[in-house]
Protein backbone atom coordinates (compact mmCIF):
# COMPACT_ATOMS: atom_id res chain seq x y z
CA UNK A 1 0.00 0.00 0.00
CA UNK A 2 3.03 2.25 -0.15
CA UNK A 3 1.85 3.64 -3.46
CA UNK A 4 -1.08 5.29 -1.73
CA UNK A 5 1.18 6.74 0.90
CA UNK A 6 3.12 8.54 -1.80
CA UNK A 7 -0.02 10.41 -2.78
CA UNK A 8 -0.61 11.52 0.77
CA UNK A 9 1.81 14.38 1.03
CA UNK A 10 0.85 18.04 1.15
CA UNK A 11 0.97 18.55 -2.59
CA UNK A 12 -0.85 15.31 -3.33
CA UNK A 13 -3.72 15.99 -0.96
CA UNK A 14 -4.26 19.52 -2.25
CA UNK A 15 -3.96 18.44 -5.87
CA UNK A 16 -6.34 15.49 -5.55
CA UNK A 17 -8.87 17.50 -3.56
CA UNK A 18 -8.90 20.31 -6.10
CA UNK A 19 -9.20 17.96 -9.08
CA UNK A 20 -11.96 15.94 -7.42
CA UNK A 21 -13.88 19.10 -6.52
CA UNK A 22 -13.70 20.41 -10.07
CA UNK A 23 -14.80 17.07 -11.55
CA UNK A 24 -17.67 16.85 -9.06
CA UNK A 25 -18.79 20.37 -9.93
CA UNK A 26 -18.52 19.73 -13.65
CA UNK A 27 -20.60 16.57 -13.36
CA UNK A 28 -23.09 17.53 -10.69
CA UNK A 29 -23.69 21.25 -11.23
CA UNK A 30 -25.67 20.82 -14.45
CA UNK A 31 -27.81 18.14 -12.74
CA UNK A 32 -28.57 20.23 -9.67
CA UNK A 33 -28.65 23.80 -10.98
CA UNK A 34 -31.35 24.54 -13.53
CA UNK A 35 -29.66 26.02 -16.64
CA UNK A 36 -31.79 29.18 -16.54
CA UNK A 37 -30.10 30.17 -13.26
CA UNK A 38 -27.00 31.05 -15.24
CA UNK A 39 -28.80 33.05 -17.89
CA UNK A 40 -31.50 34.74 -15.82
CA UNK A 41 -30.91 38.46 -16.00
CA UNK A 42 -31.72 40.84 -13.22
CA UNK A 43 -31.27 44.36 -14.54
CA UNK A 44 -31.82 45.93 -11.13
CA UNK A 45 -28.88 43.95 -9.74
CA UNK A 46 -26.34 44.60 -12.48
CA UNK A 47 -22.69 44.41 -11.42
CA UNK A 48 -23.64 44.01 -7.80
CA UNK A 49 -20.81 42.97 -5.49
CA UNK A 50 -20.93 39.65 -3.63
CA UNK A 51 -23.91 39.67 -1.23
CA UNK A 52 -26.41 37.30 0.38
CA UNK A 53 -28.60 36.99 -2.72
CA UNK A 54 -25.64 36.60 -5.09
CA UNK A 55 -22.70 34.96 -3.27
CA UNK A 56 -20.16 35.94 -5.88
CA UNK A 57 -21.86 39.03 -7.25
CA UNK A 58 -23.38 39.53 -10.68
CA UNK A 59 -22.11 40.45 -14.15
CA UNK A 60 -23.01 43.31 -16.50
CA UNK A 61 -26.40 41.73 -17.28
CA UNK A 62 -27.21 40.95 -13.68
CA UNK A 63 -26.54 37.24 -14.11
CA UNK A 64 -25.42 35.37 -11.01
CA UNK A 65 -21.67 34.68 -11.16
CA UNK A 66 -21.81 31.75 -8.74
CA UNK A 67 -24.17 29.80 -10.98
CA UNK A 68 -22.31 30.82 -14.12
CA UNK A 69 -18.95 29.72 -12.80
CA UNK A 70 -20.41 26.41 -11.58
CA UNK A 71 -22.09 25.67 -14.92
CA UNK A 72 -19.08 26.98 -16.85
CA UNK A 73 -16.98 24.24 -15.27
CA UNK A 74 -18.56 21.62 -17.49
CA UNK A 75 -17.80 23.57 -20.69
CA UNK A 76 -14.18 24.16 -19.74
CA UNK A 77 -13.55 20.61 -18.52
CA UNK A 78 -15.39 19.16 -21.49
CA UNK A 79 -13.28 21.08 -24.00
CA UNK A 80 -10.00 20.40 -22.22
CA UNK A 81 -10.66 16.66 -21.86
CA UNK A 82 -11.85 16.20 -25.43
CA UNK A 83 -8.91 18.19 -26.80
CA UNK A 84 -6.34 16.17 -24.86
CA UNK A 85 -8.06 12.92 -25.89
CA UNK A 86 -7.93 14.05 -29.48
CA UNK A 87 -4.23 14.85 -29.36
CA UNK A 88 -3.65 11.45 -27.73
CA UNK A 89 -5.57 9.65 -30.46
CA UNK A 90 -3.36 11.27 -33.11
CA UNK A 91 -0.13 11.62 -31.15
CA UNK A 92 0.05 8.19 -29.54
CA UNK A 93 0.17 6.11 -32.77
CA UNK A 94 2.45 8.68 -34.43
CA UNK A 95 4.90 8.68 -31.54
CA UNK A 96 4.78 4.89 -31.10
CA UNK A 97 5.42 4.17 -34.77
CA UNK A 98 8.12 6.80 -35.04
CA UNK A 99 9.95 5.69 -31.93
CA UNK A 100 9.53 1.95 -32.45
CA UNK A 101 10.48 1.67 -36.10
CA UNK A 102 13.01 4.51 -36.21
CA UNK A 103 14.87 5.01 -39.46
CA UNK A 104 13.35 6.92 -42.31
CA UNK A 105 9.76 6.92 -40.97
CA UNK A 106 11.06 8.44 -37.77
CA UNK A 107 13.13 11.05 -39.62
CA UNK A 108 10.25 12.24 -41.76
CA UNK A 109 7.66 12.25 -38.97
CA UNK A 110 9.88 13.98 -36.46
CA UNK A 111 10.98 16.59 -38.99
CA UNK A 112 7.31 17.43 -39.42
CA UNK A 113 6.67 17.43 -35.68
CA UNK A 114 9.71 19.63 -35.02
CA UNK A 115 8.49 22.11 -37.59
CA UNK A 116 5.04 22.14 -36.02
CA UNK A 117 6.72 22.89 -32.69
CA UNK A 118 7.98 26.17 -34.18
CA UNK A 119 4.38 27.31 -34.22
CA UNK A 120 3.37 28.54 -30.77
CA UNK A 121 0.56 26.23 -29.60
CA UNK A 122 -1.75 29.14 -28.90
CA UNK A 123 -1.09 30.69 -32.32
CA UNK A 124 -1.81 27.38 -34.04
CA UNK A 125 -5.00 26.89 -32.04
CA UNK A 126 -6.14 30.48 -32.69
CA UNK A 127 -5.47 30.18 -36.42
CA UNK A 128 -7.28 26.86 -36.77
CA UNK A 129 -10.20 28.15 -34.75
CA UNK A 130 -10.41 31.38 -36.77
CA UNK A 131 -10.15 29.50 -40.03
CA UNK A 132 -12.75 26.85 -39.15
CA UNK A 133 -15.05 29.38 -37.51
CA UNK A 134 -15.11 29.61 -33.73
CA UNK A 135 -17.50 27.32 -31.90
CA UNK A 136 -17.32 24.67 -29.20
CA UNK A 137 -16.44 21.78 -31.48
CA UNK A 138 -13.80 23.69 -33.45
CA UNK A 139 -12.22 24.90 -30.22
CA UNK A 140 -11.67 21.26 -29.28
CA UNK A 141 -10.21 20.48 -32.71
CA UNK A 142 -7.97 23.55 -32.60
CA UNK A 143 -6.53 22.80 -29.15
CA UNK A 144 -6.30 19.09 -29.95
CA UNK A 145 -4.23 19.66 -33.07
CA UNK A 146 -2.08 22.32 -31.43
CA UNK A 147 -1.14 19.94 -28.59
CA UNK A 148 -0.47 16.88 -30.77
CA UNK A 149 3.18 17.60 -31.70
CA UNK A 150 4.19 17.95 -28.04
CA UNK A 151 2.66 14.61 -27.10
CA UNK A 152 3.96 12.89 -30.23
CA UNK A 153 7.52 14.09 -29.50
CA UNK A 154 7.44 12.89 -25.92
CA UNK A 155 5.85 9.52 -26.75
CA UNK A 156 8.36 8.97 -29.54
CA UNK A 157 11.26 9.47 -27.15
CA UNK A 158 9.79 7.04 -24.62
CA UNK A 159 8.94 4.46 -27.28
CA UNK A 160 12.49 4.68 -28.60
CA UNK A 161 13.87 4.04 -25.13
CA UNK A 162 11.56 1.14 -24.33
CA UNK A 163 11.96 -0.48 -27.76
CA UNK A 164 15.64 -1.05 -26.99
CA UNK A 165 14.99 -2.78 -23.66
CA UNK A 166 16.19 -6.36 -23.29
CA UNK A 167 12.67 -7.64 -22.58
CA UNK A 168 11.45 -6.30 -25.91
CA UNK A 169 14.43 -7.93 -27.57
CA UNK A 170 13.61 -11.18 -25.80
CA UNK A 171 9.99 -11.09 -26.90
CA UNK A 172 11.06 -10.38 -30.44
CA UNK A 173 13.46 -13.30 -30.52
CA UNK A 174 10.69 -15.58 -29.32
CA UNK A 175 8.79 -14.62 -32.45
CA UNK A 176 6.40 -11.84 -31.40
CA UNK A 177 5.19 -9.67 -34.29
CA UNK A 178 5.76 -5.92 -34.42
CA UNK A 179 2.15 -5.08 -33.65
CA UNK A 180 2.18 -7.46 -30.71
CA UNK A 181 5.43 -5.96 -29.45
CA UNK A 182 4.10 -2.42 -29.74
CA UNK A 183 0.75 -3.07 -28.11
CA UNK A 184 1.81 -5.71 -25.62
CA UNK A 185 5.23 -4.50 -24.55
CA UNK A 186 6.05 -0.96 -25.57
CA UNK A 187 2.67 0.67 -24.95
CA UNK A 188 2.14 -0.57 -21.37
CA UNK A 189 5.63 0.54 -20.43
CA UNK A 190 5.24 4.08 -21.69
CA UNK A 191 1.78 4.48 -20.14
CA UNK A 192 3.05 6.10 -16.90
CA UNK A 193 4.69 8.90 -18.86
CA UNK A 194 1.65 9.26 -21.10
CA UNK A 195 -0.70 9.52 -18.12
CA UNK A 196 1.44 12.10 -16.36
CA UNK A 197 1.84 14.17 -19.51
CA UNK A 198 -1.89 13.99 -20.25
CA UNK A 199 -2.69 15.31 -16.79
CA UNK A 200 -0.34 18.24 -17.28
CA UNK A 201 -1.70 18.77 -20.82
CA UNK A 202 -5.18 19.03 -19.33
CA UNK A 203 -3.98 21.98 -17.28
CA UNK A 204 -2.58 23.62 -20.40
CA UNK A 205 -5.77 22.87 -22.32
CA UNK A 206 -7.85 24.65 -19.66
CA UNK A 207 -5.54 27.65 -20.03
CA UNK A 208 -5.71 27.46 -23.82
CA UNK A 209 -9.51 27.33 -23.82
CA UNK A 210 -9.58 30.31 -21.50
CA UNK A 211 -7.15 32.17 -23.78
CA UNK A 212 -9.10 31.34 -26.95
CA UNK A 213 -12.45 32.30 -25.46
CA UNK A 214 -10.92 35.42 -23.97
CA UNK A 215 -9.98 36.51 -27.50
CA UNK A 216 -13.43 35.64 -28.80
CA UNK A 217 -12.08 32.79 -30.93
CA UNK A 218 -13.15 29.95 -28.66
CA UNK A 219 -16.45 29.15 -27.00
CA UNK A 220 -19.20 31.52 -28.12
CA UNK A 221 -22.00 33.09 -26.07
CA UNK A 222 -24.55 32.20 -24.73
CA UNK A 223 -22.40 29.24 -23.63
CA UNK A 224 -20.87 29.90 -20.20
CA UNK A 225 -17.16 29.21 -20.10
CA UNK A 226 -14.56 30.66 -17.76
CA UNK A 227 -12.55 32.36 -20.49
CA UNK A 228 -15.68 33.93 -21.89
CA UNK A 229 -16.61 35.27 -18.46
CA UNK A 230 -13.19 36.90 -18.07
CA UNK A 231 -13.56 38.42 -21.52
CA UNK A 232 -16.94 39.90 -20.62
CA UNK A 233 -15.46 41.39 -17.45
CA UNK A 234 -12.86 43.46 -19.31
CA UNK A 235 -15.03 46.52 -19.74
CA UNK A 236 -16.20 46.56 -16.13
CA UNK A 237 -12.91 46.06 -14.33
CA UNK A 238 -13.01 49.41 -12.55
CA UNK A 239 -16.50 49.09 -11.18
CA UNK A 240 -16.72 45.35 -10.73
CA UNK A 241 -13.35 43.57 -10.37
CA UNK A 242 -15.13 40.46 -9.00
CA UNK A 243 -16.48 39.72 -12.48
CA UNK A 244 -12.87 38.90 -13.47
CA UNK A 245 -11.74 37.51 -10.13
CA UNK A 246 -14.43 34.82 -9.84
CA UNK A 247 -13.80 33.01 -13.16
CA UNK A 248 -10.05 33.76 -12.96
CA UNK A 249 -9.84 32.04 -9.58
CA UNK A 250 -11.80 29.09 -10.95
CA UNK A 251 -9.29 28.66 -13.78
CA UNK A 252 -6.35 29.12 -11.42
CA UNK A 253 -7.59 26.56 -8.87
CA UNK A 254 -8.31 23.98 -11.57
CA UNK A 255 -4.96 24.38 -13.26
CA UNK A 256 -3.17 24.48 -9.91
CA UNK A 257 -4.89 21.23 -8.89
CA UNK A 258 -4.03 19.52 -12.17
CA UNK A 259 -0.41 20.66 -11.99
CA UNK A 260 0.03 19.44 -8.41
CA UNK A 261 -1.76 16.19 -9.18
CA UNK A 262 0.47 15.75 -12.25
CA UNK A 263 3.63 16.35 -10.19
CA UNK A 264 2.61 13.78 -7.61
CA UNK A 265 1.53 11.29 -10.27
CA UNK A 266 4.97 11.64 -11.81
CA UNK A 267 6.66 10.85 -8.51
CA UNK A 268 4.46 7.78 -8.07
CA UNK A 269 4.39 6.42 -11.60
CA UNK A 270 7.77 7.43 -12.89
CA UNK A 271 10.40 6.68 -10.26
CA UNK A 272 13.26 7.75 -12.55
CA UNK A 273 12.34 11.41 -12.29
CA UNK A 274 12.11 11.80 -8.52
CA UNK A 275 11.93 15.48 -7.79
Amino acid at each position, binding site marked *: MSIFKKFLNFKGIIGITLVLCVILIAVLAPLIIPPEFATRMDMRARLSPPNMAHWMGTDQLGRDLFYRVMLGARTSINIATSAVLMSLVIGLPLGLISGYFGGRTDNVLM*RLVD*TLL*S*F*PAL*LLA*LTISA*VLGPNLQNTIIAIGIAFTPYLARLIRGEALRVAQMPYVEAARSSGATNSRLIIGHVLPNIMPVVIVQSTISLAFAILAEAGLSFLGLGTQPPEASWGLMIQASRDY*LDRAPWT*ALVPGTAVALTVLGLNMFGDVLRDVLDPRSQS
Partner: protein
Amino acid sequence: MAVTLFLISIITFTVTNILPGDVAMMIMGTQSNPAALANLRESLGLNDPLIYQYGRWIFGMLTGDWGNSLLFKQPIGPILLQKMTASALIVLLSMTIALTLAIPLGVWSAVYKNRWQDTAGSSVSILGVSLPDFFWGIMLILLFARALGWFPSSGFVHPNEDFLLALKHAFLPSLALGLGLMAHLTRMTRATMTGILSQEFIRVARAKGLAEKTVIWQYGLANAIGPVMTVAGLQMGYLFGSIIVMESLFNYTGMGWLTYQALLNRDMPLIQATVFVIAAVVMLVNLLVDLLYPIFDPRIELK
Protein backbone atom coordinates in the same frame (compact mmCIF):
# COMPACT_ATOMS: atom_id res chain seq x y z
CA MET B 1 17.34 25.43 -41.79
CA ALA B 2 16.15 26.15 -45.33
CA VAL B 3 14.25 22.86 -45.21
CA THR B 4 12.59 23.83 -41.95
CA LEU B 5 11.61 27.25 -43.31
CA PHE B 6 10.18 25.53 -46.37
CA LEU B 7 8.18 23.15 -44.13
CA ILE B 8 6.99 26.10 -42.04
CA SER B 9 5.72 27.79 -45.18
CA ILE B 10 3.90 24.63 -46.31
CA ILE B 11 2.23 24.17 -42.93
CA THR B 12 1.23 27.84 -42.81
CA PHE B 13 -0.26 27.62 -46.26
CA THR B 14 -2.09 24.36 -45.54
CA VAL B 15 -3.56 25.49 -42.24
CA THR B 16 -4.83 28.74 -43.69
CA ASN B 17 -6.25 27.09 -46.79
CA ILE B 18 -8.41 24.47 -45.10
CA LEU B 19 -10.91 27.24 -44.54
CA PRO B 20 -14.22 27.07 -46.35
CA GLY B 21 -14.39 30.88 -46.61
CA ASP B 22 -13.75 32.84 -49.77
CA VAL B 23 -11.23 35.66 -49.99
CA ALA B 24 -13.10 37.29 -52.88
CA MET B 25 -16.26 37.44 -50.83
CA MET B 26 -14.32 38.91 -47.93
CA ILE B 27 -13.08 41.73 -50.16
CA MET B 28 -16.40 42.53 -51.82
CA GLY B 29 -18.86 41.62 -49.10
CA THR B 30 -21.55 38.94 -49.09
CA GLN B 31 -24.08 41.05 -50.97
CA SER B 32 -21.96 41.52 -54.09
CA ASN B 33 -22.92 40.52 -57.59
CA PRO B 34 -21.93 36.94 -58.51
CA ALA B 35 -20.36 37.88 -61.86
CA ALA B 36 -18.10 40.47 -60.25
CA LEU B 37 -17.18 37.94 -57.59
CA ALA B 38 -16.24 35.38 -60.22
CA ASN B 39 -14.13 37.98 -62.02
CA LEU B 40 -12.29 38.94 -58.88
CA ARG B 41 -11.73 35.30 -58.02
CA GLU B 42 -10.21 34.75 -61.45
CA SER B 43 -7.99 37.83 -61.25
CA LEU B 44 -6.77 36.86 -57.76
CA GLY B 45 -5.94 33.42 -59.12
CA LEU B 46 -8.24 31.68 -56.63
CA ASN B 47 -9.40 29.23 -59.28
CA ASP B 48 -5.90 27.89 -59.87
CA PRO B 49 -4.85 24.62 -58.28
CA LEU B 50 -3.56 25.05 -54.71
CA ILE B 51 -0.04 24.14 -55.74
CA TYR B 52 0.09 27.14 -58.11
CA GLN B 53 -1.35 29.40 -55.43
CA TYR B 54 1.31 28.18 -53.02
CA GLY B 55 4.01 28.72 -55.63
CA ARG B 56 2.85 32.26 -56.23
CA TRP B 57 2.69 33.00 -52.52
CA ILE B 58 6.14 31.61 -51.71
CA PHE B 59 7.64 33.35 -54.75
CA GLY B 60 6.18 36.64 -53.56
CA MET B 61 7.52 36.07 -50.03
CA LEU B 62 11.00 35.30 -51.40
CA THR B 63 11.10 38.34 -53.67
CA GLY B 64 9.85 40.72 -51.00
CA ASP B 65 6.34 41.12 -52.40
CA TRP B 66 4.22 40.10 -49.41
CA GLY B 67 0.96 41.26 -50.89
CA ASN B 68 -1.57 43.67 -49.47
CA SER B 69 -3.50 43.40 -46.26
CA LEU B 70 -7.25 43.27 -46.93
CA LEU B 71 -7.91 44.93 -43.60
CA PHE B 72 -5.42 47.78 -43.68
CA LYS B 73 -5.36 48.12 -47.49
CA GLN B 74 -1.58 48.51 -47.34
CA PRO B 75 1.43 46.41 -48.36
CA ILE B 76 2.12 43.81 -45.65
CA GLY B 77 5.93 44.07 -45.55
CA PRO B 78 6.25 47.55 -44.01
CA ILE B 79 3.40 46.92 -41.52
CA LEU B 80 5.10 43.74 -40.32
CA LEU B 81 8.45 45.42 -39.92
CA GLN B 82 6.98 48.19 -37.80
CA LYS B 83 5.00 45.80 -35.57
CA MET B 84 8.02 43.54 -35.16
CA THR B 85 10.02 46.36 -33.56
CA ALA B 86 7.15 47.07 -31.17
CA SER B 87 7.01 43.42 -30.13
CA ALA B 88 10.77 43.03 -29.91
CA LEU B 89 10.68 45.51 -27.03
CA ILE B 90 8.11 43.41 -25.15
CA VAL B 91 9.85 40.11 -25.85
CA LEU B 92 13.24 41.39 -24.68
CA LEU B 93 11.80 43.13 -21.64
CA SER B 94 9.75 40.14 -20.48
CA MET B 95 12.67 37.74 -21.02
CA THR B 96 14.89 40.05 -18.95
CA ILE B 97 12.31 40.27 -16.18
CA ALA B 98 11.79 36.51 -16.20
CA LEU B 99 15.50 35.63 -16.11
CA THR B 100 16.49 38.16 -13.46
CA LEU B 101 13.76 36.84 -11.17
CA ALA B 102 13.91 33.14 -12.05
CA ILE B 103 17.64 32.46 -11.74
CA PRO B 104 18.10 33.75 -8.16
CA LEU B 105 14.77 32.24 -7.07
CA GLY B 106 15.60 28.86 -8.62
CA VAL B 107 19.09 28.82 -7.13
CA TRP B 108 17.71 29.80 -3.75
CA SER B 109 15.15 26.99 -3.89
CA ALA B 110 17.83 24.48 -4.84
CA VAL B 111 20.25 25.58 -2.13
CA TYR B 112 17.57 25.36 0.56
CA LYS B 113 16.06 22.20 -0.90
CA ASN B 114 13.07 20.92 1.10
CA ARG B 115 13.27 23.77 3.60
CA TRP B 116 10.71 26.56 3.88
CA GLN B 117 12.62 28.71 1.37
CA ASP B 118 12.20 25.96 -1.22
CA THR B 119 8.51 25.54 -0.43
CA ALA B 120 8.02 29.27 -0.81
CA GLY B 121 9.90 29.36 -4.11
CA SER B 122 8.06 26.33 -5.47
CA SER B 123 4.69 27.72 -4.40
CA VAL B 124 5.37 31.00 -6.17
CA SER B 125 6.36 29.21 -9.35
CA ILE B 126 3.48 26.71 -9.38
CA LEU B 127 1.10 29.62 -8.84
CA GLY B 128 2.74 31.43 -11.74
CA VAL B 129 2.30 28.42 -14.01
CA SER B 130 -1.33 27.99 -13.00
CA LEU B 131 -2.68 31.47 -13.54
CA PRO B 132 -3.57 32.35 -17.11
CA ASP B 133 -1.26 35.15 -18.21
CA PHE B 134 -4.14 37.40 -19.23
CA PHE B 135 -5.35 37.08 -15.65
CA TRP B 136 -1.96 38.43 -14.50
CA GLY B 137 -2.47 41.18 -17.07
CA ILE B 138 -5.86 42.13 -15.66
CA MET B 139 -4.51 42.12 -12.10
CA LEU B 140 -1.59 44.35 -13.10
CA ILE B 141 -3.93 46.77 -14.87
CA LEU B 142 -6.10 46.95 -11.76
CA LEU B 143 -3.15 47.48 -9.45
CA PHE B 144 -0.59 49.57 -11.33
CA ALA B 145 -2.74 51.39 -13.87
CA ARG B 146 -6.08 51.94 -12.14
CA ALA B 147 -5.32 51.97 -8.42
CA LEU B 148 -1.80 53.44 -8.39
CA GLY B 149 -1.71 55.10 -11.78
CA TRP B 150 2.02 54.43 -12.25
CA PHE B 151 1.77 52.97 -15.73
CA PRO B 152 -0.60 53.44 -18.67
CA SER B 153 -3.01 50.54 -19.14
CA SER B 154 -3.06 50.58 -22.92
CA GLY B 155 -1.40 51.89 -26.05
CA PHE B 156 1.95 51.87 -27.76
CA VAL B 157 4.60 54.56 -28.18
CA HIS B 158 7.49 54.08 -30.57
CA PRO B 159 10.88 54.01 -28.79
CA ASN B 160 12.23 56.59 -31.28
CA GLU B 161 9.66 59.14 -30.22
CA ASP B 162 10.04 58.93 -26.49
CA PHE B 163 12.05 56.03 -25.14
CA LEU B 164 10.97 56.39 -21.53
CA LEU B 165 7.30 56.58 -22.44
CA ALA B 166 7.73 53.59 -24.76
CA LEU B 167 9.19 51.60 -21.86
CA LYS B 168 6.32 52.66 -19.62
CA HIS B 169 3.80 51.37 -22.15
CA ALA B 170 5.68 48.14 -22.65
CA PHE B 171 6.28 47.51 -18.96
CA LEU B 172 2.94 46.11 -17.76
CA PRO B 173 2.42 43.66 -20.65
CA SER B 174 6.05 42.56 -20.32
CA LEU B 175 5.68 42.07 -16.58
CA ALA B 176 2.54 39.98 -17.06
CA LEU B 177 4.32 37.82 -19.66
CA GLY B 178 7.50 37.74 -17.61
CA LEU B 179 5.74 36.41 -14.49
CA GLY B 180 4.33 33.39 -16.31
CA LEU B 181 7.67 32.78 -17.97
CA MET B 182 9.51 33.21 -14.68
CA ALA B 183 7.51 30.39 -13.15
CA HIS B 184 8.63 27.91 -15.81
CA LEU B 185 12.24 29.05 -15.67
CA THR B 186 12.36 28.92 -11.86
CA ARG B 187 11.25 25.30 -11.90
CA MET B 188 13.89 24.52 -14.51
CA THR B 189 16.67 26.37 -12.66
CA ARG B 190 15.77 24.62 -9.42
CA ALA B 191 15.79 21.17 -11.02
CA THR B 192 19.11 21.73 -12.81
CA MET B 193 20.79 23.29 -9.78
CA THR B 194 19.62 20.48 -7.51
CA GLY B 195 21.23 17.97 -9.82
CA ILE B 196 24.49 19.90 -10.01
CA LEU B 197 24.78 20.67 -6.30
CA SER B 198 24.72 16.95 -5.50
CA GLN B 199 27.73 16.23 -7.70
CA GLU B 200 31.25 15.35 -6.64
CA PHE B 201 33.03 18.49 -7.81
CA ILE B 202 30.80 20.61 -5.62
CA ARG B 203 31.80 18.47 -2.62
CA VAL B 204 35.43 18.91 -3.57
CA ALA B 205 35.00 22.66 -3.88
CA ARG B 206 33.41 22.79 -0.43
CA ALA B 207 36.02 20.44 1.02
CA LYS B 208 38.87 22.64 -0.08
CA GLY B 209 37.27 25.45 1.87
CA LEU B 210 35.85 27.71 -0.78
CA ALA B 211 33.26 30.19 0.36
CA GLU B 212 29.72 28.85 -0.05
CA LYS B 213 28.95 31.87 -2.24
CA THR B 214 31.72 30.94 -4.67
CA VAL B 215 30.65 27.31 -4.70
CA ILE B 216 27.05 28.10 -5.53
CA TRP B 217 27.44 30.94 -7.99
CA GLN B 218 30.73 30.17 -9.70
CA TYR B 219 30.78 26.38 -9.57
CA GLY B 220 27.08 25.57 -9.49
CA LEU B 221 25.33 28.20 -11.54
CA ALA B 222 28.06 28.28 -14.19
CA ASN B 223 27.11 24.70 -14.97
CA ALA B 224 23.37 25.26 -14.80
CA ILE B 225 23.18 28.29 -17.05
CA GLY B 226 23.38 26.31 -20.31
CA PRO B 227 20.28 24.15 -19.79
CA VAL B 228 18.41 27.16 -18.38
CA MET B 229 19.17 29.21 -21.49
CA THR B 230 18.03 26.34 -23.71
CA VAL B 231 14.72 26.21 -21.89
CA ALA B 232 14.48 29.99 -22.12
CA GLY B 233 14.89 29.61 -25.87
CA LEU B 234 12.22 26.94 -26.02
CA GLN B 235 9.91 29.22 -24.06
CA MET B 236 10.07 31.67 -26.96
CA GLY B 237 7.29 29.70 -28.59
CA TYR B 238 5.15 30.08 -25.50
CA LEU B 239 6.03 33.77 -25.35
CA PHE B 240 5.02 34.42 -28.95
CA GLY B 241 1.72 32.67 -28.33
CA SER B 242 0.97 34.65 -25.18
CA ILE B 243 1.96 37.89 -26.83
CA ILE B 244 -1.20 37.66 -28.95
CA VAL B 245 -3.37 37.67 -25.84
CA MET B 246 -1.31 40.22 -23.97
CA GLU B 247 -0.97 42.79 -26.75
CA SER B 248 -4.69 42.59 -27.40
CA LEU B 249 -5.43 43.07 -23.72
CA PHE B 250 -3.16 46.11 -23.46
CA ASN B 251 -3.99 47.43 -26.92
CA TYR B 252 -0.27 47.37 -27.62
CA THR B 253 -0.02 47.45 -31.40
CA GLY B 254 2.71 44.90 -32.06
CA MET B 255 2.95 41.56 -33.83
CA GLY B 256 0.53 39.84 -31.49
CA TRP B 257 -2.08 42.54 -31.87
CA LEU B 258 -1.61 42.46 -35.65
CA THR B 259 -2.03 38.68 -35.74
CA TYR B 260 -5.18 38.95 -33.67
CA GLN B 261 -6.66 41.63 -35.95
CA ALA B 262 -5.82 39.51 -38.99
CA LEU B 263 -7.46 36.43 -37.46
CA LEU B 264 -10.56 38.30 -36.30
CA ASN B 265 -11.10 39.85 -39.73
CA ARG B 266 -10.01 36.78 -41.65
CA ASP B 267 -7.47 38.86 -43.52
CA MET B 268 -5.97 35.85 -45.29
CA PRO B 269 -2.75 37.36 -46.74
CA LEU B 270 -1.99 39.00 -43.40
CA ILE B 271 -2.73 35.80 -41.45
CA GLN B 272 -0.38 33.84 -43.67
CA ALA B 273 2.37 36.43 -43.33
CA THR B 274 2.12 36.83 -39.55
CA VAL B 275 1.85 33.12 -38.82
CA PHE B 276 4.81 32.40 -41.09
CA VAL B 277 6.95 35.16 -39.60
CA ILE B 278 6.20 34.17 -35.99
CA ALA B 279 7.03 30.50 -36.61
CA ALA B 280 10.20 31.49 -38.48
CA VAL B 281 11.30 33.80 -35.66
CA VAL B 282 10.69 31.11 -33.03
CA MET B 283 12.75 28.66 -35.06
CA LEU B 284 15.57 31.16 -35.61
CA VAL B 285 15.74 32.09 -31.93
CA ASN B 286 16.10 28.44 -30.99
CA LEU B 287 18.81 28.03 -33.59
CA LEU B 288 20.56 31.09 -32.17
CA VAL B 289 20.42 29.64 -28.64
CA ASP B 290 22.02 26.46 -29.96
CA LEU B 291 24.75 28.45 -31.67
CA LEU B 292 25.39 30.55 -28.57
CA TYR B 293 25.54 27.50 -26.31
CA PRO B 294 29.37 27.35 -26.26
CA ILE B 295 29.38 30.79 -24.63
CA PHE B 296 27.37 29.50 -21.67
CA ASP B 297 29.16 26.19 -21.57
CA PRO B 298 32.66 26.30 -23.12
CA ARG B 299 32.97 22.50 -22.87
CA ILE B 300 30.53 22.18 -25.77
CA GLU B 301 32.02 22.67 -29.21
CA LEU B 302 29.87 23.13 -32.27
CA LYS B 303 30.44 20.61 -34.99
